[in-house]
């Protein structure tokens, strides 16, 4: 990883590209994590911001208290979010479909209120985070970019592994018909808990480097509902049934948004996400992967 980082840092390109690239790779992690639960298991999670921000705020807490190094922050952020994931996994025992989705949305707002009222991590005013003085290589943004690329590779590899193992087949079975799957002996609860936990872990991991990236953390940016809409728009656009779908969606939509932010306005990019999402879900419900498959079949 260090070698790759040194290589990336030695490329003489516009530093802004790393800054924008970080966001795109962050979205690859988020979209992939969302898809493990949403795409494979069919449980739509609107609470992505809760998990992302929990990762970010775990990191803030550890920076504030013991100035922990970045790998520790990432691991801790992931674990705390994984615990929350396990919690909502048990929620699926009682809540299915729409009710589960609404509950996750509620969870996100409740958590945001708690953070707003917790002054140690900045409360509603936010908190400035000072980056460590010397990164292992390159500038700090280059370093963070490399870390995020690494995390994206880990997330996508994990998703690909899950998809192709018996776990993925079990999740697909419960997505199509939970009762039938249970009757056939698929351990649905254990599979759902696994999916929510791993999805939560990866979302937390994506959020943990966030404080160092923005250097100023406040609840509105960490709990931004944009993460919720992007997390589900990207897999929906790419295609939810395969690990490559979220990656395609994240790269396309992520780059489009970065471009729109620079050239038009940051509000315009959300507009684009909304329109593209609705257009895809109405016209091409299987996403880009589905379109490609249909073209091939001809």
């Amino acid at each position: 990883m260090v070698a790759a980082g040194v290589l990336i840092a030695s490329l003489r390109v516009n530093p802004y590209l790393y800054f924008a690239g970080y966001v795109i790779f962050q979205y690859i992690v988020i979209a992939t994590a969302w898809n493990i639960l949403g795409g494979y298991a069919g449980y739509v999670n609107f609470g992505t911001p809760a998990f992302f921000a929990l990762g970010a705020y775990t990191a803030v807490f550890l920076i504030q208290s013991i100035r922990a190094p970045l790998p520790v922050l990432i691991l801790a952020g992931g674990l705390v979010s994984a615990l929350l994931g396990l919690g909502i996994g048990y929620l699926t025992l009682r809540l299915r479909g729409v009710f589960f989705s609404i509950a996750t949305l509620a969870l996100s707002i409740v958590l945001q209120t708690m953070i707003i009222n917790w002054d140690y991590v900045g409360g509603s005013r936010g908190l400035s985070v000072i980056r460590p003085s010397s990164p292992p290589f390159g500038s700090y943004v280059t370093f963070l970019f490399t870390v995020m690329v690494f995390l994206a590779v880990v997330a996508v590899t994990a998703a690909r592994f899950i998809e192709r193992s018996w776990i993925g087949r079990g999740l697909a079975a419960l997505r199509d018909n939970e009762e039938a799957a249970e009757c056939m002996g698929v351990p649905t609860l254990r599979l759902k808990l696994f999916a929510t936990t791993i999805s939560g872990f990866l979302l937390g991991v994506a959020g943990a480097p966030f404080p160092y990236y923005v250097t100023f953390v406040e609840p509105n940016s960490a709990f931004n509902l944009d993460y919720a809409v992007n997390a589900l728009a990207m897999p929906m656009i790419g295609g939810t049934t395969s690990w490559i779908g979220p990656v395609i969606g994240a790269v396309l939509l992520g780059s489009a948004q970065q471009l729109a932010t620079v050239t038009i306005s940051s509000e315009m990019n959300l507009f684009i996400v909304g329109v593209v999402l609705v257009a895809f879900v109405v016209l091409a419900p299987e996403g880009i992967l589905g379109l490609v498959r249909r073209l091939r079949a001809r």
Partner: protein
Amino acid sequence: MFAWDLLANAVVAGLLLGGFYAAVSLGVSIIFGLLDIANIAQPAFLILGSYAAYVMNSTFGLDPILTGLLFTPVFYLLGAAVYRVYYGSFERRGEESLRGLVFFFGLLFIIEVSLSLKFGVDYRLVQAGYIGKSIEFAGVGIAYRLLVPCLVGLAMTLALHLFLGRTFYGRAIMAVSQDRLALRLMGANPVKIKTVAFGIGIAAASLAGALLVTITPVIPSSDRDYIGRMFAITVLGGMGSIGGTLVAAVILGVIESLMATFYGPSWSLAVSFGILLVALAVRPAGLFGR
């Protein structure tokens, strides 16, 4: 010493707020409770109604609540159109749950962002004769700004209750929520009835939006504050019971008002979502569920 007058004021404000919350939630009670369509975009139509009232108020000086009433046919047609798209794209294909949810979520964002592109993110408010005035009653202040929306909310609740129980279309809507096949066998067209119901739900939301902008200034992202409230009230009220919606709305209004008075307003939002989470986890059928 315990501040009794503070408590009395908070309870009265909460009761008034409850009447308004009932107006906000009626649309969800119909669309989600009766039709079983998870229209997450409902709060966006609420804010759209607020902005309609704001525009008419600032350009023509029209009363916001009157504007809200005048605009209900427009929103009814808008709602009917949205339902047609939803039906054609999802319900007919039997893919309503997952993709339909995403569709409405996208719609929520499109409306919200369109509003902020058009009007910016400044707070917008309306002018009317009764805003800012209040009456005192035994040491408890009642602001007209809250009283008027509460009364309109109660009127809306009563009107919908009568509509659903007494008229042909109202009864058909109740029937479509219970047994679609039986309705079809009786010679009625469920899609047409659901279109009517969806339109009424959206129109109710837009009128509630006019009430909202009377109570407090709005920004395009105000809709997010109401997602939790609407669904909490609907679930707590027993999914589609109009009377239950009113009771749940008043309960939520009082609790929120007490929280805001004694612990600070930053907690009041968490209350509705907290109640929603508990209600969903413990008793999804609500207080008055069948």
